[in-house]
């Protein structure tokens, strides 16, 4: 969806007409779900958080500055929603088995069966290691690697100066590497 279309939809939503909110929800629900799932660790809580964040965002649209992009603003709301859920009794980071519920994009079949299996195993370990690192480390890794956001966008979502993103990413990746080593994984 282009920024102009997005702006026009938000302008209409600001009048309270929720019909124009549907394309925005559909455009941002998959990246939003990835973020929530990464932060909360299981699909049910992630969907609850996503739903609540969309409702909160719609109710806050009156204060939304149309010169800003919707994505980082929405992710900021979603991130706060996930943090609230983690702090309340409603959810804690519960690792969901990587079986039927979560998909793993397999390594290229051209790599051969051994490499294919190795890659799958490495990703399983990574998912488990994500549970072991702190919430702050986890969220920045998810925003960068799973959401693919640029440093400027990450800074906007986390409400930190852009210059701090690289340093926080370094510490988060270092923590993830140490968690993997503690699990007995040789990485890479």
């Amino acid at each position, binding site marked *: 969806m282009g920024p102009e279309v997005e702006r026009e939809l938000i302008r209409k939503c600001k009048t309270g007409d929720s019909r124009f909110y549907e394309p925005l929800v559909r455009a941002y629900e998959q990246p939003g779900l990835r973020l929530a799932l990464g932060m909360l660790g299981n699909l049910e809580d992630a969907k609850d958080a996503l739903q609540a964040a969309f409702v909160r965002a719609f109710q806050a649209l009156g204060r939304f500055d149309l010169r800003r992009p919707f994505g980082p603003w929405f992710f900021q709301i979603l991130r706060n929603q996930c943090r609230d859920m983690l702090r309340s009794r409603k959810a804690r980071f519960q690792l969901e088995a990587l079986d039927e519920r979560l*998909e793993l994009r397999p390594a290229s079949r051209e790599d051969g069966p051994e490499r294919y299996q190795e890659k799958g195993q490495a990703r399983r370990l990574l998912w488990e290691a994500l549970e072991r690192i702190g919430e702050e480390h986890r969220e920045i890794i998810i925003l960068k690697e799973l959401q693919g956001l640029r440093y400027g966008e990450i800074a906007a979502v986390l409400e930190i100066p852009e210059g701090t993103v690289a340093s926080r990413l370094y510490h988060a990746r270092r923590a993830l590497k140490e968690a993997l080593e503690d699990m007995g994984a040789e990485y890479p």
Partner: protein
Amino acid sequence: MSERVTHEELMRYLDGEVGPEERRRIEASMEESTEMRRDLVVFRTMKDDLQGLNLATGQGNGSVWDAVNRQLTRPVGWVLVVIGSLLWAAYGIYAYLTSPHFFLEKVATGAVAIGILLLLASVIWDRYREWLVDPYRDLQR
């Protein structure tokens, strides 16, 4: 000898957040640091594998739009129902009180109505207090 690459620069290099000139400088510095090159390999592999965690995409996960839409439109419905009910109740009470019925009849009907309301309120209050201390209240049934 080249300037040492900081951890922040290494991250920006890994994530493609550097310009061509800075990139060349970092690459030249890394030629001299085995430790940095090793870190880069580890972080790059981790990055590739993390990006391979294709979580919760598409199939099997329906849109949340219907649930969001329900939550956005339901409060409007509730507000209208409550306002309408209150108006009807107020009009009913007014009409009954100003009607030519016998006084004792009004007192008896009023007592029954107030009694039912008090019983209902006490049941709701008890359920609420039970819910507050229910250890299983967050479990989905």
